[in-house]
């Protein structure tokens, strides 16, 4: 509360999903695959998933974007549909927070 962070949020075709995964879960290969599958499956209901990026932690390296999930759709409208369907939903008992992401930064892998 206090600052209105919901302002100036232009939609793009890349959706950033926050508060869904922990570093510990990402380190586990099997769990990581399951998470990828869960996100791909659910996002596929709202549009065509062009690409999906889930940064994984690497021992001794400061990997940017760990804990975030990025989903690229083929259109902004599909991304909007997914955003509306996923925001506030529960994922592994955590509340999903969404944010649109700059496609250029996404493609440069600036997570």
């Amino acid at each position, binding site marked *: 509360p206090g600052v209105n962070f919901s302002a100036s949020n232009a939609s793009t075709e890349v959706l950033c999903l926050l508060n869904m995964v922990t570093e510990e879960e990402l380190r586990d290969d099997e769990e990581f695959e399951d998470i990828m599958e869960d996100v791909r499956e659910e996002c596929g209901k709202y549009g065509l998933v062009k690409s999906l990026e889930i940064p994984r932690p690497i021992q001794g390296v400061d990997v940017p974007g760990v804990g975030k999930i990025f989903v690229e759709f083929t259109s902004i409208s599909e991304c909007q549909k997914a955003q509306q369907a996923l925001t506030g939903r529960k994922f592994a008992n955590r509340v999903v*927070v969404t944010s649109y992401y700059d496609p250029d930064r996404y493609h440069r892998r600036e997570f």
Partner: protein
Amino acid sequence: NTTQTKKKRKNRFADETERVFLPNMPTNISSNMTEQQQKIYILQVQIEELTRRLKMNDLGIPANVEARSPSPEPIYDQQGKRQNTREVRARRKIEEQRHQLVTELLVLNPDYKAPSDYKPQQAKYID
């Protein structure tokens, strides 16, 4: 069809009808936030969600008895009333989680106002 149920594992996404709404905390956020602002906001969301669960008595106790963990030895007070019921233990767990998050958030933002029902835990937790 055991093979089928085994293959079709449960998606971590809960049903669309189980949407969480946190007052004054939109779950769609601006892309202009800095890393630090985002971190602070996520911590607040996590704290508010635990506050909501405590208020709504949404303690995450599985309805299916077999899915529950074994209970510890009962502890009774002087009136013979059980102290460590499943509900009490579940609440304590959530309160501890929330305490951790509040502590973490206060480091990032010393001006943060904790939820009104939050009591700082001075006593060390004894297992």
